[in-house]
């Protein structure tokens, strides 16, 4: 491919140009990148240098193997092709630049056999890249998939930018192909050995087209194509850091440094232990300077693909939050903050300038955005940090101040008295058959049932607590509750940015748990589950009740009676903090599938694509501006899937879904039941029960029979409930 004598490409003048262009290009590029890099140096610390092997493995999986891309099939395949093509062409691009200076340049290690194989690969790579770029451009410019749309308030449409970049890539490919094709065509005309061009590749086609073009023209074409390629290449390089294509350069770093621990939150300040937190004057992110370097790297690396916002439930219901634009606005702020030319600006509060308060409070922390992002970007940590800043400044909506104050005084958001936390165990019928022990520090139980606030205090959700207790009894679990000593787990308190209050709640609970002497914890509340697993340290291992049930179904301790009504269709709604954040998808499903006669369907958005019900904890008190409730959307999804019963495994999901059924006007057509309630209802107390266990609680812990809707027989549907009011 090199050393053609027919054209004096490498005249002195030409060579000077081909040295200058790269030099200028690289100089510009370096200046720009250095400029982009400086804010990272000045940013807050972020400790991401641990577990290098795990990080490398993830780079292989998510960056090299593009693991998340196929979640959107067409775009994913296009991108994989583009990406693979780029990687393959890297060597060739480098060689091309060098050819301008050293005409016989061959990449070390790429002579001989390797070079030949590479030559074929690169031709096909170029062709595929070209085809992908054309398809992508048509897709963006003509078909305009919805997720790329830019709502008016966020500015101008991005299609032009996308198509521009795609054209640059196409230009590079075509210029390169013409460069080779023109040479090969000339060789053919001169009867010289023709450089190999892979059959049916783009350069091959172009060569055939050019076969009859006069030599003079070929010469100019060859020179011109090279020049175009040179200039475009370095222009492209310099344009990359100016927009969303910075990800081409930063993606590897972004994936390497990505967060490893799901379900956790970043500390208030990396490197500052809790004991020293009182030295930190300002909590959270208030101005751009408060972001960590990894956050800023995220902003740079956003590829504007829109997959996050496409899956964001807040975005879907018309709340002012769009994760994509949260990032892009910050990116533009970063660019303005330290511009390529001009003096850096700093100190402007983010909320009130690029962000609105409602935008920040709208997030339910469901994690759909993080699950989707092909670059493994983090959103929840940033939202929590921004909330920490708002809390620090006292800038909290009145609707949230009340429950926060109640959490501080009473340890629960409802302001209910501590001594009443165990009252759910005192329901008459229940208490006669199932005696729930309150652990008082004298030991006596291996397992703690951590109930948490909503299940303990809400009239409706208390039935989940009772069902869970009965199940634990049935499987012979030696358990107790903390009763008045249990305060709210603080899961949402933390995620709403009130870190200090969270620590107070946590410390209280950890002490109470330790004093109880239990060896393990079970809960039916996925938020409490996540808190105990990830936010709390030094507590015994914790399980969700669905895991316990699934295990005991397999072991045979739990057997089910067939359903009385066989014509209901059930669907399981994955709670965000059980499913997506903790990857527990199969246990609840296995339990449902073990119930004889239960017909189950999957909603189209299930498992890691589950659609958030609306959120839990403090989110129940927040009054968002939205077009529709998330719960209503979810209930309609269930109906679309053909179900008339939604099973869930989270009390907050239950609140939101039951409310939504009413608001959507689907009463009588759709019901909701908790997994524990359903299991309790269906547990077989039949022939395999020995006389001894008859004396125990199991047999007489009947499922609660009460008036229910026509849809489900024997379902406890106590309609009074406690929401965001006194």
């Amino acid at each position, binding site marked *: 491919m090199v050393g053609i004598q027919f054209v004096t490409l490498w005249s002195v003048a030409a060579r000077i140009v081909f040295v200058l262009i790269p030099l200028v290009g690289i100089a510009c590029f370096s200046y720009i990148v250095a400029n982009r890099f400086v804010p990272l140096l000045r940013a807050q610390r972020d400790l991401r240098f641990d577990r290098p092997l795990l990080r490398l493995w993830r780079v292989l999986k998510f960056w090299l193997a593009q693991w998340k891309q196929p979640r959107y099939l067409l775009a994913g395949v296009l991108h994989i092709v583009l990406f693979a093509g780029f990687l393959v062409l890297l060597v060739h691009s480098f060689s091309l630049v060098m050819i301008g200076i050293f005409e016989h340049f061959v990449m070390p290690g790429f002579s001989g056999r390797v070079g030949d194989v590479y030559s074929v690969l690169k031709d096909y790579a170029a062709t595929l890249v070209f085809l992908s770029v054309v398809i992508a451009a048509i897709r963006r410019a003509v078909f305009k998939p919805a997720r790329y749309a830019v709502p008016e308030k966020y500015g101008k449409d991005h299609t032009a930018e996308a198509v521009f970049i795609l054209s640059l890539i196409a230009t590079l490919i075509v210029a390169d192909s013409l460069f080779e094709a023109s040479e090969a065509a000339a060789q053919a005309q001169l009867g010289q050995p023709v450089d190999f061009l892979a059959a049916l590749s783009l350069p091959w086609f172009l060569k055939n087209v050019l076969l009859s073009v006069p030599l003079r023209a070929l010469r100019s074409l060859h020179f011109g194509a090279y020049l175009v390629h040179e200039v475009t290449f370095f222009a492209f390089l310099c344009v990359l850091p100016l927009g969303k294509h910075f990800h081409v350069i930063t993606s590897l770093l972004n994936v390497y440094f990505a967060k490893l621990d799901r379900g956790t939150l970043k500390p208030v300040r990396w490197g500052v232990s809790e004991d020293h937190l009182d030295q930190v004057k300002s909590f959270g992110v208030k101005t751009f300077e408060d972001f960590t370097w990894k956050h800023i790297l995220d902003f740079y690396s956003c590829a504007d693909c829109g997959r996050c916002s496409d899956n964001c439930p807040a975005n879907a219901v018309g709340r002012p939050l769009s994760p994509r634009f949260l990032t892009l606005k910050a990116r533009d702020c970063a660019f303005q903050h330290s511009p390529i030319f001009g003096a850096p600006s700093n100190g402007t509060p983010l909320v009130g300038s690029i962000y609105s308060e409602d935008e920040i409070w709208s997030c339910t922390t469901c994690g759909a955005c993080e699950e989707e992002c092909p670059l493994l970007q983090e959103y929840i940590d940033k939202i929590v940090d921004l909330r920490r800043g708002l809390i620090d400044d006292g800038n909290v909506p009145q609707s949230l101040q009340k429950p926060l104050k109640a959490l501080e005084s009473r340890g629960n958001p409802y302001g209910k008295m501590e001594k009443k936390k165990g009252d759910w165990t005192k329901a008459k019928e229940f208490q006669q058959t199932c005696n729930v022990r309150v652990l008082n520090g004298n030991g006596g139980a291996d397992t703690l049932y951590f109930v948490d606030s909503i299940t303990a205090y809400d009239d409706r959700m208390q039935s989940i607590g009772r069902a869970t207790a009965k199940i634990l009894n049935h499987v012979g679990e030696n358990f107790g509750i903390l009763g008045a000593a249990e305060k709210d787990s603080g899961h949402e308190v933390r995620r709403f940015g009130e870190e200090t209050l969270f620590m107070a709640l946590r410390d209280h609970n950890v002490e109470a748990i330790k004093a109880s002497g239990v060896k393990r914890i079970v809960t039916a509340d996925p938020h409490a589950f996540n808190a105990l697993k990830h936010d709390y340290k030094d507590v015994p291992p914790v399980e969700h009740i669905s895991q316990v049930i699934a295990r005991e179904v397999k072991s045979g301790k739990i057997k089910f009676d067939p359903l009385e009504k066989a014509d209901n269709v059930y669907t399981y709604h994955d709670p965000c903090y059980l499913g997506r954040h903790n990857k527990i998808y199969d246990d609840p499903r296995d339990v449902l599938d073990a119930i004889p006669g239960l017909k189950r369907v999957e909603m189209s958005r299930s498992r890691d694509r589950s659609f958030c019900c609306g959120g839990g904890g403090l989110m129940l008190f927040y*009054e968002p501006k939205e077009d529709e*409730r998330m719960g209503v959307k979810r209930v309609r999804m269930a109906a679309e899937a053909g179900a008339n019963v939604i099973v869930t495994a989270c009390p907050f999901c239950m609140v939101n879904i039951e409310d939504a059924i*009413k608001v959507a006007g689907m009463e009588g057509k759709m019901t909701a039941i908790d997994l524990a309630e359903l299991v309790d209802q269906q547990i077989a107390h039949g022939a395999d029960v020995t006389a001894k266990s008859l004396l125990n609680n199991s047999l007489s812990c009947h499922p609660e029979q009460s008036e229910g809707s026509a849809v489900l027989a024997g379902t406890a549907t106590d*309609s009074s409930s406690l929401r*965001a*009011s006194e």
Partner: protein
Amino acid sequence: MARIFAYIAHKGGVVDDSAFELAAAARKIDPTASPTAILAGWGADLDAACKNLSASYPEIWKIANEGLAYPNAELIRKGLTKVLPNNSIVLVAHEHFGIDLAPGLSIKLNSAFVSDVLDIAGVENASLNVVRQEFGGQVSAHVQCDISSGAVITIRPGAFKMQNGAPIHGTVIDKSADVGALTAGRRYLETVVAEAGDVDITKHNILVSIGRGIQEKENVAIAQELADALGAAVGCSRPVVDAKWMEKSRQVGSSGKTVKPKVYLACGISGAFQHLAGIKGSPFLIAINKNPKAPIFQVADVGIVDDLLEFLPELTAKVHEMRTVAAK
């Protein structure tokens, strides 16, 4: 016993209902004597108000002063201080004017002060025993007040019932000269009238009124649907306005609108007196509340202990059903 005066508020020549309630309260304090009414104001309006009272009070003291054309409590206090005899007992209605006037008046008269009295339990020597409420009405308390050097007492509107006795022919005594010129450190500028909302709840015969029990903004629609079905309007209590779920123009209460419907449905309303103060004319009051102990059940005619979020939609459905049947 000391002389009892009742300070009477008036507007546009008409006296406030509280005028007659104060007379009833005064008689309960001292059944042997008749209270003296005392009014301040200016011009024809003041005279008409005095005339209004002559059927219920034997003696009516009038303080006419141009500066009192608008009732400025700061000025009126100064006037009253000049005119009232020592050790008087002064009754004032416990509403925005009384709250403004009375505490400072008690200091200037060097007498005791007790506010928001619901009932008079009795007089023992120089001690008046009254009934008050605390903690937002959750508990009641007996309070003893030393009236040896007089007292200023504010009376809860509606707590004492007007009594219809034989008509008296009261005389109006002009005390304006004793008052002289009045100045104060607070000067009235203007009154900003509340924005008329889309609906004037004072003009409806049936009101569906909602309180905190409605729980969230979206549920207001449930009340609206019922109101539409009944040809009624939706009103509310203060917490609903504070939470910004409804406009201020919908608020029924002492700091909101006064309504006189024929039927009043109080849904999820606890029954705080500030709200009840806005309901006049003794409508038929139906209360729907989840809490059987809610104070509203004390004043309602009919009560239903149920969840309004379930009850109201079913009620609405029944109304529609009835109308469809009637239309056939």
